[in-house]
């Protein structure tokens, strides 16, 4: 499974085995294009269908029908004739469509005629005081452990934030016998009003009924506090308590061992940005999204982006975007092939998204921290540090690196980039688009020197190489 790619060149290389990547792989391989699917995880499914082939949670009702729908998609990709490599890290992609990939301790360079980036989403950074304490995790982290290892919280646990995933996770934890002491809902009250104009589309969407049922299920078992502000985690060397201010203005504190945070997901842009794909600030989703045409073609010829990496749309939209990107690749490489117009299906899958985007738009206080709250987890840089650098001349994220090393740690800005952009934009009275983002470079994931050197690791083998 962790063998190096069989060839140096492919018609299509797909990166990421979530809904979009699996769907794209299936379509291009079935059309007869040589297709390589590279994925970082141990098995297919991405985050939404994490461990779809391997989960210990066998009772289908526990994880829900949406989760299990992934099994058929993953099976189709497996049987499509594509070469699929898991535990493969794509650490470089350039405008010549050359990829650097590390598999099983060695590196390989491969070339593609078309690249479909389906690297999905990550959770939006949630920089509250104390968010680096051991015991503070993302809701997605808990869900990953639940799906792939059947692990659920058993100590005092609080879920905080907003959005569909938070409620889905809460329901799943409870169904599996896990413990939740409280849900702290941070959805700003004003968002309900703002979202109202989009409510009709949402009520006729795929999400509506499921979402309501899930919230009812959780509320029946757990106390929910809504309108929460000023959320903070506290403790010495580990999480000990969570404090917050209620809608009524009262500060409350809960003793807690685990705090699971979530306020939405944002595109995972590192690989596409490092390749040079143009991105723009998305004012609705408050994140960077690639500039794409209707088929997902990026600013770099031959690179298409599908799934949540193209802008958050959810798993169903990701499937259709993956298929559309595949059709585009097929048409480009087999001009005589017949391709169909899948845009109506995509449109249907995207229905209701605007309502969710507006309703669950995170409040400014949870995106733009102040004072001693850590912004860059890797280099341990606070909001005050960033603002001090702005005061002495740092004008954007790239200049800030020279002052504070923000974004230069191993996560390469994944957990501070959006915060730094918005924080600097606010401090300088500019738009996030004007302030810009870190200039990202390969390797987008750290690689071992020995992997890059493609040299054997054993001492004997090393000596042989050095002598030779």
């Amino acid at each position, binding site marked *: 499974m962790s063998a190096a790619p069989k060839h140096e060149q492919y018609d299509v290389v797909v990166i990421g085995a979530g809904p979009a990547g699996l769907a794209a792989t299936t379509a291009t391989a079935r059309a007869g294009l040589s297709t390589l699917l590279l994925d970082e995880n141990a098995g297919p499914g991405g985050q939404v269908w994490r461990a779809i082939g391997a989960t*210990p949670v066998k009772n289908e009702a526990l994880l829900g029908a949406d989760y299990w729908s992934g099994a058929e998609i993953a099976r189709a990709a497996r049987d499509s004739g594509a070469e699929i490599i898991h535990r493969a890290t794509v650490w470089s992609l350039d405008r010549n469509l050359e990829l650097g990939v590390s598999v099983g301790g060695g590196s390989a360079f491969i070339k593609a005629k078309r690249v479909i980036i389906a690297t999905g989403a990550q*959770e939006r950074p949630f920089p509250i005081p104390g968010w680096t304490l051991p015991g503070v*995790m*993302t809701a997605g982290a808990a869900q990953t452990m639940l799906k792939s290892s*059947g692990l*659920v919280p058993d100590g005092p646990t609080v879920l905080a934030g907003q959005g569909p995933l938070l409620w889905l996770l809460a329901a799943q934890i409870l169904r*599996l016998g896990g413990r939740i002491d409280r849900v702290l809902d941070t959805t700003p009250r004003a968002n309900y009003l703002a979202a109202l104009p989009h409510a009709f589309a949402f009520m006729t969407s795929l999400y509506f009924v499921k979402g309501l049922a899930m919230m009812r299920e959780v509320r029946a078992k757990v106390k929910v506090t809504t309108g929460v502000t000023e959320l903070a985690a506290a403790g010495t060397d580990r999480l000990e308590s969570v404090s917050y201010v209620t809608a009524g203005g009262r500060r409350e504190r809960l003793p807690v061992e685990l705090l699971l945070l979530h306020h939405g997901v944002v595109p995972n842009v590192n690989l596409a940005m490092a390749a040079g794909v143009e991105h723009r600030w998305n004012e609705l989703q408050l994140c960077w999204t690639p500039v794409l045409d209707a088929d997902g073609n990026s600013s770099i010829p031959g690179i298409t982006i599908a799934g949540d990496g193209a802008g958050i749309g959810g798993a169903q939209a990701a499937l259709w975007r993956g298929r559309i990107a595949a059709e585009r690749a097929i048409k480009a490489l087999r001009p005589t092939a017949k391709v169909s117009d899948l845009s109506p299906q995509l449109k249907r899958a995207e229905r209701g998204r605007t309502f969710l985007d507006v309703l669950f738009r995170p409040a400014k206080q949870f995106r733009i921290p102040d004072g001693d709250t850590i912004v860059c987890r890797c280099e341990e840089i606070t909001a005050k540090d960033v603002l001090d650098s702005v005061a002495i001349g740092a004008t954007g994220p790239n200049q800030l690196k020279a002052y504070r090393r923000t974004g230069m740690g191993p996560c390469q800005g994944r957990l501070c980039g959006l915060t730094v952009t918005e924080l600097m934009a606010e401090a300088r009275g500019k738009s996030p688009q004007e302030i810009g983002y870190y200039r990202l470079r390969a390797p987008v*994931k750290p690689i071992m020197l020995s992997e890059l050197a493609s040299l054997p690791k054993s001492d004997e083998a090393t000596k042989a190489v050095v002598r030779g």
Partner: protein
Amino acid sequence: MFKRAEDDGRRALTIHVEGQAISAREGDTVSAALLASGLDVRRDTAVSGAKRLPYCMMGVCFDCLVTIDGVGNRQGCLVPVAEGMQIEIQKGKREIGK
């Protein structure tokens, strides 16, 4: 912090954390097995020595960095456990050459 669901039917295997044997299940990632073990598996950061545990469990945050079979700075949340694996919790900057 976490417990295993009761009907987990996967094969058990043994890994070693700082020399201490713990039970994991086939298909666990290293980070999941460490969190399920109940041991103190907090690492120290290289910058200030602050205590950390995994945050994202999906390969993004790098707070799960751990030494696996002598190789440091591995993302524990992306590496599946294997029988006999030797895990060391990273304290500060790891020693080079391991």
